[in-house]
């Protein structure tokens, strides 16, 4: 078991529709594949990124800056996978 760690970074939502329901579903599904706890923040609001409703409540449009934070034994892999999904526009661009 690898040592618990925390990885965080800022990402931009780049797909035209923003973090809409299907995109949020992809993010949450991917986050749930990892053991790490995952949080997503916009402004001062931080939500559990393993919760669909939490992610949707951030109401992130295109161009929104979000902070992704992963904590746990697989935090680095988790962060990389989620960051790739976000940077790739959730496969929509």
């Amino acid at each position, binding site marked *: 078991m690898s040592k618990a760690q925390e990885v965080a970074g800022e990402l931009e939502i780049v797909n035209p529709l923003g973090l809409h*329901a*299907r995109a949020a*579903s992809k993010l*949450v*599904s991917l986050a*749930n594949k990892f053991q790490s706890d995952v949080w997503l923040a916009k402004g001062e609001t931080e939500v559990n990124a393993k*919760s*669909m*409703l939490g992610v949707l*409540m951030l109401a992130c449009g295109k161009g929104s800056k979000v902070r992704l934070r992963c904590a746990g034994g697989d935090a680095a892999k988790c962060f990389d996978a989620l960051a790739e999904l976000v940077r790739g526009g959730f496969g929509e661009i």
Partner: protein
Amino acid sequence: MVPITEHTVGVVIVGHGSTASQLLEAARGIVGGDALDDVVAVDAGAGQTPELAQRLFAEIGAADHGAGVLLVVDLLGASPCSCGLREGVGHSLALLSGLNLAMLLKLASLDRASLGPTELAAACAASAQRSVTIRPPEESG
């Protein structure tokens, strides 16, 4: 399709008009995958009929694999709700009212083989309640 065992809680959704099938389709379209494949929607149309009662009796019976059934209804106390409760007698059935999309999305994320009907209902209700918010005009821009 997610394997169904005797530990899997079945889910039947019933609502006025075609709200049940429409919301279930919307949820399936959002979450993808197969988590909601075995969930059944029963459209009550305009109200209670013998056909609705028969359909609910059959669907609730089919959904009970041994672990009970979660009956999701749109409006507490209305005909689809009361008809479902009546036809569900004899099954270990938990009622969840206030059908909305958020609760179905939550349902898709839950393991229905490890949670009971009441636990599932509670988790879905919490999501549904959180999804109802008010933002005044000055905060909605």
